[in-house]
């Protein structure tokens, strides 16, 4: 890794993946001190830290294309410059909604990073190789909780079913091929190619949990083009407030 400089297209792709991880990390951080039990607090915080690590690597690499630092990219971009898909900015909701979002996100990221290890771009391949082992654990965590909530009490089952319904409209966007992907053949992973692997894992989990993939509204999304929900503004405000109030602040 080290000194590699990303082209503009590779930097844009690194932003897609880095922003996904960054926004999800920020969301999971919202559970700290609010999770159902202390142990779950720690589990979600650990997952958030893993994702923050992935985001930092990807943003650092993206920044090499135009001389920006990972902090510049995390704290000094506004909503239209963020490239995260809509799934990741869906609200935490109750615990079931966070788990449903986490299930879709981690199954997608596992498929993505598994394939990205073969990227012709050595930096992206190295980041993927490190991330895939951590995401495998995130996936396991989400699967375990999906099974327990769906198979628990009437209340937990109702909430898990509702959560899957709330989250699933935003799954399709993850697998849409944007024009950028055509320009990065051999470097980027074609999103549509990840769909069969994603569906196979989800189908198996849902079959065991007695859940069904919701059939209904499918959002076209717009995160990769910088369109976001109004809630994204609040999320960024909280994430960026310290850096913007204390310019150049360091630990």
């Amino acid at each position, binding site marked *: 890794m080290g000194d590699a400089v990303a082209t503009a297209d590779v930097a844009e792709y690194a932003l897609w993946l880095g922003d996904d991880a960054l926004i999800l990390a920020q969301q999971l951080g919202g559970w700290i001190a609010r999770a159902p*039990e*202390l*142990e*779950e607090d*720690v*589990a979600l915080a*650990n997952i958030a830290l893993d994702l923050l690590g992935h985001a930092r690597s990807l943003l650092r690499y993206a920044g090499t294309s135009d001389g920006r630092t990972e902090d510049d990219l995390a704290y000094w971009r506004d909503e239209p410059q963020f490239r995260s898909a809509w799934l990741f900015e869906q609200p935490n909701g109750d615990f079931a909604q966070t788990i449903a979002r986490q299930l879709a996100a981690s199954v997608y990221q596992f498929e993505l990073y598994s394939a990205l290890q073969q990227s012709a771009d050595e930096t992206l391949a190295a980041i993927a190789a490190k991330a895939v082992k951590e995401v495998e*654990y995130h996936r*396991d*965590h989400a699967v*375990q909780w999906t099974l*327990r909530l769906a198979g*628990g*009490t009437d209340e937990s089952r109702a909430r898990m079913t509702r959560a899957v319904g709330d989250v699933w409209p935003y799954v399709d966007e993850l697998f849409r091929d944007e024009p950028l992907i055509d320009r990065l053949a051999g470097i980027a992973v074609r999103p549509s190619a990840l769909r069969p692997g994603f569906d196979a894992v989800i189908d198996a989990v849902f079959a065991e949990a007695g859940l069904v993939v919701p059939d209904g509204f499918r959002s076209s999304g717009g995160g990769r083009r910088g369109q976001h929900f109004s809630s994204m503004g609040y999320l960024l405000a909280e994430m960026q407030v310290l850096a913007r109030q204390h310019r150049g602040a360091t630990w």
Partner: protein
Amino acid sequence: MTSPGVSPHETWPLWEVFVRASRGLSHVHAGSLHAPDAELALRNARDLYTRRGEGTSVWVVPSDAITTSDPDAKGAFFESPAGKNYRHASYYTASEGVPHL
């Protein structure tokens, strides 16, 4: 373990965590945690006790499956054998012609 919904503020049952630092060593008690079942106890143990590469193997045991000595009975349980020389077979003389003693 109580059934879900039996009491308004029920907590998850307690588990004891044992971590083996490397092959060839025994599992050592690392601490305890709450978890709803054994599978999640194992995952919580991973998050709480092995995040810095401490372990190659983790055991979780329901705390109520462990029977412990009574701390108040320490004297009776762990009285030093000092002064109880009769416990040690040190007064016997080895018989002649018996090898390997």
